């Protein structure tokens, strides 16, 4: 394959990387350019990259000597990541100005992190997987510590960095085991080798898979590799937390699905029990640990752990329907999370950010529209029909039942009942408690429009499920039929 065809295949990634560098130079050389304009340019670039992906043909082209893969699954996940990144950057613009961390590097770092995510999703080799993952993680470590004068932000960044490095080490260790067994890092060769094997895989290979799964489970913050999540989410500046909770989760989940279903697809029996355990533990911990939280950012951290557990139920099924379930779930999760964080970013009293759950008291009287949107998002998170969150859970549990994982599905449903308690408690606090001090108004057009978009997606999903469900079905088909 010529270099020209390679460049065409990776055009969205190259475009974004180039834009990030140009934005960086703009910020450095034009002293008076505002962070807001850099941020808006970054959002435009993300939208353009999304258009490039949408217009490109996602038909399993392999580029750069087998390191990079374009397929339907990747396209769907990449568009999700770009939407998540663009929406959270838009939300962050105002937050940055209010929090005195108005540095032009912020959008640049987020764009570079997005490039890393796209590279992760397109990885077709263990090494390109690792490169994408590090590109993403390194940028996120920096933005987590972005408010460098705040002790908690620095702590969050450092904690994220140290634990993330540990996870990368585990991932690399697992990769070296797999490489030692097969003599190749390419996903295609790995899939061939495992498909041609009759007898049980050697113990070294299994150890390798366990380590790879552990390293990736850290990135999606699944139990038992979740410890960093509440501290980082709470300590990092809120615009950063919004970003962390949305796009990187989707990208890492896509990566985990691609690795387990692709090269290790013939070893389902080996990794299925790991995924089942991680899913169970995440759902249960996410539900029970969130009950006692009073800080809404910590609550969202546990909520995201729980949601990752639910999405993993689909992966545990190891089938095409399961992958479709994961894709639908992550798409809905993305919009719900972005919407909730739009509300959290609007939680400011007298110019100061507040993040206790009690600060939401009586929101229905002080700001009825925002309370209504938040209530819809909370009902959706709890999985109450006819909101989108219900359908996300429906697809993953259906896949699990079809694959015969009845216990997992039953425990999942029970966990979601427990989780409903704290989501509904927020609704109760907003609607039935005496109002405390109202939030600052106006919240700004960016936050209002992001909140409106995500709420509309969640509410209207039941009427127009087409784009997400059909897209996810195509994605799942592309992933499971590739290389078979």
């Amino acid at each position, binding site marked *: 394959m010529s270099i020209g065809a390679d460049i065409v295949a990776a055009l969205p990634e190259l475009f974004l990387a180039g834009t990030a560098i140009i934005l960086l130079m703009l910020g450095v050389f034009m002293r008076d350019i505002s962070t807001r304009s850099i941020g808006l340019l970054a959002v435009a670039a993300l939208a353009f990259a999304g258009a490039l992906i949408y217009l490109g043909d996602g038909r399993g082209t392999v580029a750069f000597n087998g390191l990079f893969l374009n397929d339907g699954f990747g396209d769907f996940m990449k568009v999700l990541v770009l939407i998540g990144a663009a929406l959270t950057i838009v939300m962050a613009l105002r937050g940055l100005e209010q929090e005195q961390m108005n540095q032009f*590097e912020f959008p640049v770092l987020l764009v*570079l992190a997005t490039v890393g995510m796209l590279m992760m999703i397109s990885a077709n080799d263990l090494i390109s997987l690792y490169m994408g993952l590090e590109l993403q993680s390194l940028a996120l470590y920096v933005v987590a510590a972005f408010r460098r004068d705040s002790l908690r932000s620095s702590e969050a960044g450092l904690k994220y960095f140290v634990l993330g490095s540990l996870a990368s080490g585990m991932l690399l260790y697992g990769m070296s085991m797999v490489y030692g067994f097969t003599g190749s890092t390419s996903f295609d060769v790995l899939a061939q080798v495992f498909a041609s094997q009759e007898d049980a895989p050697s113990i070294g290979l299994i150890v390798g898979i366990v380590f790879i799964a552990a390293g990736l489970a850290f990135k999606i913050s699944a139990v038992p590799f979740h410890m960093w999540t509440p501290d980082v989410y709470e300590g990092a500046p809120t615009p950063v937390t919004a970003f962390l909770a949305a796009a990187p989760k989707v990208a890492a989940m896509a990566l985990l699905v691609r690795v387990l279903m692709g090269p290790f697809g013939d070893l389902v029996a080996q990794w299925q029990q790991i995924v089942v355990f991680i899913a169970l533990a995440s759902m249960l911990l996410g539900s029970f640990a969130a009950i006692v939280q009073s800080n809404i950012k910590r609550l969202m951290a546990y909520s995201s752990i729980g949601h990752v557990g639910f999405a993993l139920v689909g992966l545990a099924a190891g089938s095409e329907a399961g992958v479709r379930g994961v894709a639908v779930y992550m798409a809905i999760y993305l919009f719900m999370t972005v919407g909730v964080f739009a509300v959290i970013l609007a939680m400011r009293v007298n110019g100061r950010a507040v993040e206790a759950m009690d600060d939401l008291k009586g929101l229905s009287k002080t700001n009825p529209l925002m309370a209504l949107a938040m209530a819809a998002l909370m009902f959706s998170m709890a999985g109450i029909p006819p909101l989108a969150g219900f359908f996300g859970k429906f697809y993953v549990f259906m896949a699990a039942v079809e694959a015969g994982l009845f216990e997992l599905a039953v425990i999942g449903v029970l966990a979601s009942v427990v989780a409903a308690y704290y989501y509904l408690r927020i609704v109760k606090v907003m609607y039935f408690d005496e109002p405390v001090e109202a939030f600052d108004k106006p919240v700004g057009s960016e936050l209002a429009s992001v909140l409106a978009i995500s709420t509309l997606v969640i509410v209207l999903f039941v009427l127009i499920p087409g784009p997400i469900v059909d897209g996810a079905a195509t994605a799942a088909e592309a992933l499971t039929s590739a290389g078979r």
Partner: protein
Amino acid sequence: MVIQALVFYLFAAVVVASAVMVISARNPVHSVLFLILAFFNAAGLFLLMGAEFLAMILVVVYVGAVAVLFLFVVMMLDVNVAQLRQGFLQYLPIGALVGLILLVELVMVLGAWVLAPGTVEGSGMPIPDPSQVTNTEALGRVIYDHYIYLFQAAGLILLIAMIGAIVLTLRQREGVRRQSISKQVARQRAEGVELKDVPSGGGV
């Protein structure tokens, strides 16, 4: 052949001995100096294998830049080794336990190691004929041609590391006098020099 073997054992023995000294020397500056010695001898080993480019790169990059940087850091930071070793005994039992478990696991894994049949030949990069291409060219083909994607990705990662270091540490301070080279160069004699006519022989 005999001379080659002798030289190999000389280099190898010095590498191992100095590597041991790196971690056992009490003075961190000595550690870094032993590290430099180890690098030099490793470069010698590369030369023996015919990998001239790697040998030179090892000396230029690791000895010339990295080790010297280490040396500066160690000398400037004045690391107190005794303080670092505090609590070493306290954590020794648990550390030893974890190490032991890992060792047992590794032995189990390696004991049962089987290579997947027929995979090793068909994969990886073929080694080119040394009489046809030079070291440098062969490496360049792998890094800049075959793995160009990963090479550029690594470049982006380093760019992020650089941006991150600047964002998190650089502070704009007021009242700092900075050197402005263009201003210095543009200075004319008339602005800098003033001739005073001092009356002579007048006394005070």
